[in-house]
C-alpha cells in the first residue's frame, strides 16, 4: 500500500473508533458507564487532535475536557448510583450509612 492510502486507512480507523466511543457513551443508560465512555471519548478526541497537529488543544482537551469534566461527571454519577442504591436499600434497612 502507498503511504497516502495507509494514512487514509489510519485516519478512518481513528475516526471510526471516535464515533463508536461517542455512540456508546450516548447510548449507555448506566451513568457510571456512560461517563467512563465519555472520558474515553474525550481522550481519544485529544489523540485525534494531536494527529491533526493541534498539540495545544489536545493537551487542554485531555486535561480539562476529558480529565476535569470527566471527574466532575464521575462524581455526579457516583452520587446518582448511591441515591439509586439507597432507594432500593431503604426498605430493608438504613444500610446506606
Amino acid at each position, binding site marked *: 500500500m502507498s503511504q497516502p492510502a495507509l494514512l487514509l486507512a489510519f485516519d478512518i480507523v481513528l475516526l471510526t473508533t471516535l464515533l463508536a466511543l461517542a455512540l456508546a457513551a450516548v447510548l449507555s443508560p448506566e451513568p457510571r458507564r456512560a461517563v467512563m465512555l465519555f472520558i474515553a471519548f474525550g481522550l481519544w478526541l485529544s489523540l485525534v487532535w494531536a494527529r491533526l497537529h493541534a498539540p495545544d488543544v489536545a*493537551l487542554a482537551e485531555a*486535561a480539562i475536557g476529558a*480529565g476535569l469534566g470527566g471527574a466532575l461527571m464521575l462524581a455526579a454519577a*457516583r452520587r446518582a448510583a448511591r441515591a439509586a442504591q439507597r432507594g432500593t436499600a431503604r426498605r430493608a434497612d438504613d444500610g446506606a450509612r
Partner: protein
Amino acid sequence: MTEPADWARSDRARERARDLSLLLAVLLALLGVVLLAVYFLALNGGAAPRLAELALARVPQSGVGNPVTAVLVNYRAYDTLVELAVLLAAVLGIWSQRPAPPGFQRSSAVLAGMVSWVVPLLIVTSGYMLWVGGYAPGGAFQAGALLGAAGVIVRLAGDPTAGLPGEAVQRWLLVLGVLMFALVGLALMLLGAGFLTYPPKLAKWLILLIESAATIAIGTALAAAYVGGRPSAKGQGPSAGEASAAPSSSSLGPRP
C-alpha cells in the same frame, strides 16, 4: 418504579417514545447529510489559507513564539479575558448554591505517599507548562488545568478543600486572572497604547504576567469547581443534613 396496573400504559408510552426517537434520528440524519454537503462547499469556497498565513506572519511581533499562545493572549486576548470571566461566573454560581460537600475518606498511607509526590510534580510541571507555552505547546490553560488536577487529586486523597486556601484568599486567587488582565489592558489604554495593545518591547513580560495570573485563577477555579460548593468558614463542619446526604463511605480504595 411503575405500579403493575400502569404497565400496559407505560408500555405504550415507551413504544411511543421509541417511535419518536427513531423519527428524530431519521430527521437528524438528514440534517447531518445537509451539514456534510454544506461543509464540503464551505471547504472549497476559496477562503483556503484563511487567517493562517497572517496569524503566523505576525507571531514574531506578538511577544511569544507559540502561534496558539499568540492568538490567545495577544490577537484575541479580549476573548480570553471574557473566558476567564465565564470561569469565574461558573464558580460563583456553584458557590451560590451550596456549601462544599464533605470530602472523601482519608486515603491509605500508600496512596497518601503517592499523592505527596504526584502533587508537587504536577505543580512543577504546571510552572514548566506556563513557561514553555511561550514557544512550544502549552500555556496558561494547560498549566492551570494541571494545577486544577493537583487539586482534584488532593481532594480525592481526603482533603475536602482540595488543597485550596481559606475563602478570603481563594476569592482573590479566583479573580486574579480577570483583574490582572483588565488592569493591564486599561493601563495600556490610559498610557495611550490602546486596550490590550502591548508595546512590542514589553509584550513578552506583560504576557507572562497575565498568563501567570490566569494560570493561578484557572487552577483555583477548576479545583473549586471540583470541590463543588462554597468553602466552609473554618476547618470543615458540614451541617447535619449535608453529612447524612453524602456519607463519606466512598473513597478511592475498595469499600470497607
